């Protein structure tokens, strides 16, 4: 079991950046689509409304990526700890956690 815990660590390390890459790619596509839709419009009022929607989409994706970057970083650290065997034996008392 301990060797499985260690070897899966590499999966968690790769999963973090992969998730961010996927989200960034989606953000680029979706926000790009929204701005392209706005650019294609000729009516001034409709164009302004579409630009607002595109800006809103940019804001949503910005917040999501901002919050997911540290989480993905956490997954990488989790994978690193797993690879190092830090989860081979979990602590059974607080004294083992407060090792500082």
């Amino acid at each position, binding site marked *: 079991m301990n060797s499985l815990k260690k070897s899966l660590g590499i999966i968690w390390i790769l999963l973090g950046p992969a998730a961010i890459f996927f989200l960034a790619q989606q953000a680029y596509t979706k926000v790009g689509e929204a701005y392209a839709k706005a650019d294609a419009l000729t009516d001034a009022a409709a164009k302004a409304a579409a630009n607002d929607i595109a800006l809103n989409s940019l*804001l949503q994706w910005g*917040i999501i990526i901002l919050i997911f970057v540290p989480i993905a970083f956490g997954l990488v650290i989790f994978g690193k700890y797993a690879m190092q065997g830090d989860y081979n034996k979990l*602590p059974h008392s607080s004294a083992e956690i407060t090792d500082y």
Partner: protein
Amino acid sequence: MQSNENKGIASVIFSSSLGTLIEWYDFYIFGSLATIIAKQFFPEEQGTAALLSTLAIFAAGFIVRPFGALFFGRLGDIIGRKSTFLLTLVLMGGSTFLIGIIPGYKSIGILAPILVLVLRLLQGLALGGEYGGAATYVAEHAPANKRGLYTSWIQTTATLGLFVSLGVILLTKMSMSNEDFVSEWGGWRYPFWVSILLVVVSIYIRLKMKESPLFSKLKKEGKTSTNPLKESFTHKANLKMVLLALFGAVMGQGVIWYTGQFYAQNFLETKVNLDFEQSRTIVLWAIAFATPFFVVFGALSDKIGRKWIMLLGMLLGIITYRPIYATFLAKGDVATTAATDAVIGDVVVKRDIIKGKADSLITTTYVKQNAAGIKYKEVHADTLKVATGELALAKVVYNEKSLPSSTYWMFIVLVFVQIIYVTMVYGPIAAFLVELFPTKIRYTSMSLPYHIGNGVFGGLVPFIATLITSFKGTDALSGLWYTIGVAGVCFVIGAIYLDNAKDDNVND
């Protein structure tokens, strides 16, 4: 003696749970009334207001909740659990009441959405601080063999908060006309005003509570943490447990929780197109029947351990979500028989000039009933082109479906099953988190993974599900892959890395 002890712990559980329930109620009424709030405070045609709306929805759930967990968690580990979660209650109740008295955009312009945004962010901050405090407080009063049972009462509050908020909104809406409910100073504000009464009662009860015995002991011995954030997240031995809690338990719990309670309702309303009342009462009934199981699984976790109950809840969700949601679609389908279904009411035809064009929009609404007993509206929105006299047929929409009794109860059972999964993953988790961390940094350490798991992973269920259904080749069920994927990763991590052993001693 035993009776006094029982009375004491009952009072601890009641006063903690009531406050937490009220906080969830406050947080949910904003979400449940989002459409009306958007019209009153964030009109779509006003670009800036719409941006503020996005911030209010996204930032309150995803950014501010984890910050609330850090801010109040730190406070709770330094000054104590009781004072901290009293503060979160005041902040939440005050913000909710104030949202209810802010004039609409029509009256005070851009100030209205700015004020609502600020108050919504304060709500998110308060929610981030409340749960960890209440769970820690109850757990630190509970004997080791009943920690799961006692903390499971705190776990019922998130579901009961939704139940009470839906109930209050439904009752208010049913007691007046739709126009009276949605007007600027209409009935939609009443649930916000009700909050102040609930909060005053809860503050009174909480003021009479004593500090957690374990925290008091630490304080007396001068062993409280001086920098809980540093001790929680920069020391490897504790950080590795925070990460394990997040990726091996709370992340999966968050998506199962949001899918069962929120995505189900949203799916029934927007994909199956049930009417407003049925989509909500189905969830209300399911919640009412399933809520006792939080306590059942909390108590069971005291006997057999927390890990496998939580992981089984995730696994069942992973396996059965797609068949359950496919059944919703199949049983609510009317499109295949609509052409031969009986028209049971007047046919309403409406003609509107399309803005900026000479063409007209002809909307024809039929009220029909199919052989299975589903009553529904069939709406044709066709364009009459003035230049050619041609009628361009648009897609037909079937909405406001009302299910017959047998199908209605079948849907309640299917939502009930999903909420049972929620009770399995959520019932034991407070005890699980409490046992993972030492007393001096417990509030901080458990609050952050909880609010990332629930606020971020859970809160993103509707957004990412909608995103997935926008991909080519997807269908109405494809959105479930987000929940299945996150719960799947969490299940693997939990099964391999977590221990099933309970930590009987949380006094250290």
